[in-house]
């Protein structure tokens, strides 16, 4: 029987305190859970919802109600930050998430720096803040998670990624200056999310995977700037989830150095092993995105039970959801998680 409210349960889990069972959540942003089935059920649809705070909040609440995830996750994409810093966005379709049409600067050397509050003052961010405010007011027991695109993914959505990745090594000073600037923008963004009612912040930084960056660049950049962002959010009194994509062997040694309250990982990573190696880590994940889209009910049940048996602290889809994931599969996942 549930004793705690979903919000208490998640906040306690993030503090490492005892809970009667693990929460089951999906944070939004990169881990967008606005699937086609839910949009069709209620008529609050994307891409309109990316630019309209009412649709955004309503859709986030629809998702929560239909899927059984124990949180509201806002926004539904990874483009808010880059658009505010100058890149062109293609808003996609009902089925297909928004994407960066073109990164505005070819090189870190070409960046035109805006005021530090450029992101916070952008229209898109305003929509996000208003949606968070609406959703938080709607149901105080359900935690609203504000989702942020991490420093390196945002940076590589503003500067051409191929040049950016190279310049991390080649033009170090300018690269650090640029990523630091991006991080400062993100700190302001997080602050306003919190002020408007977000009780947890989730950072996903897919470009900062070990497979792409390797251990050296991951240590020199990802750890430094993700931690700067996390530390600033901690000062706001709010816990932080950090999601790391991809296989992690190359960077496992850095994971314990991240200041996050929970580490969320891809399906390829054994959370059980990670827990054994770093017992103090609060782990989150990692039901395969692929399984949720294509799997049979018994397999989803079995995999969820395995995560519970492995004592994963927070249950979640590994790396977000495909928009074509059947609602029923998600309900199977959350149903098993809550039946404990």
């Amino acid at each position, binding site marked *: 029987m549930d004793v705690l409210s979903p919000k208490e349960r998640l906040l306690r889990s993030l503090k490492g305190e005892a809970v009667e069972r693990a929460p089951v959540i999906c944070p939004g942003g990169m881990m967008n859970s606005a699937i086609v089935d839910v949009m069709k059920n209620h008529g609050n649809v994307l891409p309109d919802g990316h630019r309209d705070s009412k649709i955004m909040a309503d859709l986030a609440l629809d998702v929560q109600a239909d899927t059984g995830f124990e949180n509201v996750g806002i926004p539904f994409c990874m483009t808010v930050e880059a658009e505010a810093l100058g890149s062109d966005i*293609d808003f*996609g*379709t009902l*089925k*297909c998430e928004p*994407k*960066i*049409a073109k990164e505005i600067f070819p090189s870190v050397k070409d960046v035109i720096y805006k005021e530090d509050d450029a992101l916070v003052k952008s229209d898109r961010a305003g929509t996000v803040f208003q949606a968070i405010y609406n959703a938080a007011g709607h149901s105080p027991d359900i935690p609203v998670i504000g989702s942020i695109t991490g420093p390196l993914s945002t940076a590589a959505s503003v500067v051409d*990624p*191929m040049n950016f*990745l*190279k310049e*991390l*090594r*080649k033009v170090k000073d300018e690269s650090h200056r640029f990523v630091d600037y991006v991080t400062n923008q993100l700190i302001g963004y997080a602050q306003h999310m919190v002020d408007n009612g977000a009780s947890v912040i989730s950072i996903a930084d897919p470009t900062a995977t070990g*497979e*792409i*960056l*390797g251990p050296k*660049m991951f240590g020199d950049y990802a750890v430094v700037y993700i931690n700067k962002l996390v530390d600033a959010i901690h000062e706001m009194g709010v816990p932080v989830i950090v999601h790391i994509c991809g296989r992690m*062997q*190359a960077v496992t040694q850095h994971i314990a150095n991240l200041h996050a309250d929970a580490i969320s990982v891809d399906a390829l990573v054994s959370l059980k092993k990670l827990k054994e190696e770093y017992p103090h880590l609060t782990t989150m994940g990692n039901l395969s995105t*692929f399984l949720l*889209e294509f799997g049979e009910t018994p397999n989803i049940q079995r995999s969820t039970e395995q995560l519970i048996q492995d004592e994963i602290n927070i249950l979640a889809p590994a790396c977000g959801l*495909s*928009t*074509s994931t059947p609602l029923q599969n998600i309900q199977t996942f959350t149903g098993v998680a809550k039946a404990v």
Partner: protein
Amino acid sequence: MEKEELFRQIADAVVEMEEDTVEELAQQSLEDGIDAYETIDSGLAKGMERAGQLFDEEEYFVPELLMCSDAMNVGIDVLKPHLKSENVSKKGKVVIGVVEGDTHDIGKNLVRLMMETGGFEVLDLGRDIPPAEFVSKAEEYGADIIGIATLMTTTMPGMKEVVDILADKGIRDKFKVIVGGGPISPAFAKKIGADGYARNAADAVKVAEKLLSNTDLALGA
């Protein structure tokens, strides 16, 4: 310096990402009267091939591979004006792009890079490319190979569309189609009627070579 020794040093400098050294050594090869094509092939491209191997072995990552490529290009810039024209014949022409709806292009860019290094002429269509455009651009360019990438399950059907359009237009036999990217498997490639699949950029070059040298399917590579 012995020619072979010079080539070895050039390859090393590419692997070590040392642009200045590559430039000096490329200059020296010209002063020594060594054929520019040979220096590219046995020095620069060898180095890049080794960089590709290191990437495959997870010794190098994307930033390093791109730096090696820059070093190689510095050398090519020095040598290119001295290429005798009979040498520039290429292995084949490739158009490559990422399917509509998907903007993940890091992997595709690495494939393009290794293809170019491997001696193919490559037209990069970019990302978020409608299936019909793969076909029209391949026809215009006179491509031998169409390379299609996607990292998202939701955009995989776009790959099949390219193959279907080719078939509908009755020009399927004019091109070899190779596919790749995270969710793509050899089985999927076979199912949609593609000719080849590769799991990484180094293999993509081998598969392309194999496809153009014989007509056997290269799905097992």
